[in-house]
């Protein structure tokens, strides 16, 4: 198909809307990492001894590890001593209510479309807003507390519910898991914590909004979400960062735990700054996310829309330990300019009759490289387990790449696995068909791309689905002539 250069250029130059920097007084440690830095972070947060020891163990283990080289992404080596491991908006006196949040901070989040003002919110979504290294505000805490739901920043959780934190921290993603998880375990500064008690269906969507603001910082947050027996929670995550020429590291860890019959739905719209059209700047998004279906009949569902970041390295997975548990993974990953994404999932089937579904849609444009890498493992105990995987790629332009690297390991004959993948571009005949019916080329492309992603968007909560569709529409403007 002909793709006139002018429209490609137009596409490539489409802007990143969230690239502003807020002028907020911050307090930051000097760059570099050693045990002293970890002790300082821990002390600043007034952490109990067990957490400090855990951090130090993680750090010592991290020192023995090497950065993974297998992802299909190329980037210059990261100097871990040049990163600022702790930066926080300067704390005012301890906040009594949300009205006391720094107005500049409030404006920042308003600008991002995330209102911290409970009254002004139309929909019932509770937000934990994280700026650089710390959580700045959590909305609807009182409302949620009525149901016994704990939803707060990780630091608050450590102070208020140390028993829960100690019990579950690192049980899904141990600090030995991988290089970036170990680093995160050593230096994580904040994040969100959520505990939904037995039998409670969470009345509103919970969400965390991550924002990187300070230059040269790494953001290392940690989310821990526990759904006790028979409970349900839907969780959203969004993220943006200013436009800078340097690459910034974001190495987060998310742990989900679903006990018997509990259900967790975790949705992400990732829109970190992707770098400019020549690949300068942008966030390195090296994230470990994993859910543990611990109880019988539990369910964890991951939905992600990945449009940002210079490099994405992310494999949200499910360990299906309980019998009859269910894991799902729905993903749309878009790479444009010189973005690189190596993303996928891991489904580890341990329990009997466990089921998993993987639907991955990759869209590559410009010089983007998009890889799906997924593992489906059937352990010998996973009698009657099933998996269905589908990964489709859509290529826009002839300089991008789409790759699929599935790993399938089966050690139980009653397990059934199906894997399908396809790669295609938007067909001339499809565009022609739409043109005939009076749609412009751009509308046709948006229509086709949205149709391509429909199976994933359907899984997103409504507001997110609308946002995700718009995001794709903006990113694809002018991509096909």
């Amino acid at each position: 198909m002909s793709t006139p250069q002018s429209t490609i250029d137009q596409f490539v130059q489409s802007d990143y809307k969230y690239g502003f920097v807020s002028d907020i007084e911050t307090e930051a440690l000097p760059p570099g990492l050693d045990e002293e830095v970890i002790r300082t972070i821990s002390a600043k947060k007034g952490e109990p001894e067990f957490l400090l020891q855990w951090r130090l163990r993680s750090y010592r283990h991290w020192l023995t590890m090497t950065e993974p080289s297998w992802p299909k992404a190329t980037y210059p080596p990261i100097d871990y001593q040049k990163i600022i491991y702790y930066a926080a908006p300067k704390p005012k006196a301890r906040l009594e209510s949300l009205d006391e949040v720094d107005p500049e901070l409030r404006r920042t989040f308003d600008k991002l479309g995330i209102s911290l003002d409970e009254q002004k919110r139309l929909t019932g979504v509770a937000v934990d807003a994280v700026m650089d290294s710390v959580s700045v505000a959590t909305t609807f805490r009182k409302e949620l507390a009525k149901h016994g739901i704990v939803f707060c920043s990780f630091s608050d959780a450590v102070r208020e519910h140390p028993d829960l934190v100690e019990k579950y921290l690192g049980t899904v993603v141990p600090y030995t898991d991988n290089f970036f998880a170990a680093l995160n375990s050593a230096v994580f500064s904040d994040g969100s914590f959520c505990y939904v008690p037995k039998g409670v269906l969470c009345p509103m969507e919970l969400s965390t909004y991550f924002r990187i603001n300070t230059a040269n910082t790494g953001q290392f947050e940690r989310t821990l979400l526990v759904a006790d027996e028979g409970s349900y929670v839907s969780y959203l995550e969004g993220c943006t960062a200013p436009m800078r020429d340097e690459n910034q590291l974001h190495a987060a860890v998310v742990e989900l735990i679903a006990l018997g019959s509990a259900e967790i739905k975790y949705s992400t719209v990732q829109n970190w700054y992707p770098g400019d059209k020549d690949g300068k700047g942008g966030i390195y998004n090296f994230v470990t996310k994993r859910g543990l279906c611990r109880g019988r009949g539990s369910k964890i569902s991951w939905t992600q829309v990945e449009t940002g970041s210079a490099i994405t390295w992310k494999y949200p997975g499910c360990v299906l330990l309980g019998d009859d548990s269910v894991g799902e993974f729905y993903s749309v990953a878009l790479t444009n300019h010189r973005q690189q994404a190596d993303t996928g999932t891991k489904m580890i089937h341990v329990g009997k009759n466990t089921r998993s579904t993987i639907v991955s849609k990759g869209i590559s444009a410009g010089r983007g490289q998009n890889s799906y890498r997924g593992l489906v493992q059937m352990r010998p105990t996973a009698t009657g387990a099933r998996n269905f995987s589908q990964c489709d790629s859509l290529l826009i332009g002839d300089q991008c790449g789409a790759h699929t690297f599935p790993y399938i390991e089966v050690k139980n004959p009653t397990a059934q696995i199906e894997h399908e993948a396809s790669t295609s571009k938007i067909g001339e005949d499809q565009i022609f068909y739409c043109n005939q019916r009076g749609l412009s080329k751009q509308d046709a492309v948006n229509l086709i791309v949205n149709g391509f992603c429909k199976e994933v968007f359907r899984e997103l909560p409504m507001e997110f689905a609308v946002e995700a569709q718009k995001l794709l529409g903006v990113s694809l403007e002018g991509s096909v002539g």
Partner: protein
Amino acid sequence: MDANDSPPARLGRFVEAFGSVTEAAASAREPHWMLAIRKAGLARFADQGLPTLRHEDWRFTNLAPIEALPFRPLPRPEPRAVTVADLDRLPLAGMSGLRLVFVDGHFEPELSRIEALGEQIQVCSLSQTLRTDGAWLEQQLASWHEGQDRAFRALNDAYCTDGMVLRVPAGVAVAEPIHAVFLSSGSEAGLASHPRNVLVAEANSQVTVVEQYASLGGAATFTNTLTQLVAGEGAQVEHVRFQDEGPEAFHMGALRAVAAGSAQLAAHSFALGARLSRQNIGLTLAGPGLEAILNGLYVTTEKRLADHHMVVDHAQPHCASHEYFNGILSGQSRGVFHGRILVRPGAQKTDAKQTNKNLLLSSSASVNTKPQLEIYADDVKCTHGATIGQLNPESVFYLRARGLPIETARRMLIHAFAGEIIDRVRCGPIRQALDRLVWDRLERDAQVRLDASRPHD
């Protein structure tokens, strides 16, 4: 990742034997350039050693047992008590046409059947070609690029003794399949043979080649074979590799093929034997508008492992490649499959399909499969799929509902599963012989026959 993380001392065995090779080469008056290839191969091998499990391409295939074997290459042929009667007992023995027989890596003219095929077609052994047509062979051997089977290729370079050389001139069609038999006499553990085959089908020629690997004894022998195949413009080539070595044998096989524009290439791999076997298949589609089929069947029992590692490189536009690999696994056996389709920038209108289906017949058999796509062009149609499972209960039920006993139903379905692959062999006599053989093998497998006594779930 560095594959070589222990000291090279462990490789000593593979290097020490080289002296005997240079001696044999000198006494056979091998050309100098061949010795240079051997030395370079040895140096490359000593440099990297055998791949370990930490090597991404070898994650599921442990080569420690090969490393633990004594390494006994045979630089000179030894008198072996192999008779024509032994050969007649092998499968495919009834095929007519040319037959080249190699015992422990050395050509056996007495056991072979060589008739002149016409003036221009050249079929002979590598050792003979070294003497008669050295310049051409040098060019063929030297033109070869590095593949993913580097360590074994290097070892083959250093130790290769003999093999088949075939050269079909432009426009010539060879009517009957050319059959090469590679026998391991199988008397000593660690006996290593390194066959090297050079097959060249020039423009618009047609030829079918069968490589058969078999053992006469039950010893833990080691075969490291490498076939390089060139299909010229518009050539039609069918290549069958039939690996049926003894239950203790180790087999490393490589096929590196380059096809030029408009060629039609079908390469089949049947892995029925050996304790551990690996087929490295590398195919480069170097011209536009060609069609390639890679087709394979592995049947494993007991504690055996069959590994297929395949890379198809679409370097030119308008090419089609289809890969079909089926595995039937019983006992505690393991199947490994790695398939990678690489579509280079500019290889537009590529049509690539890749499937890997696995049938698990026992509770302790396992499969690791990695069907991969790596695509750098936008106007392509690429799909891949993998399935792993038991027989479909609904299919079994369908047949039972028509009055077939469960055992027959199972057998029918398993044979049909193998038949999908066998049916793609175009050459009639080979297809029929393989069909019978696979059928017999499956019938001998208790887990195919039985399991019917157990309630079916």
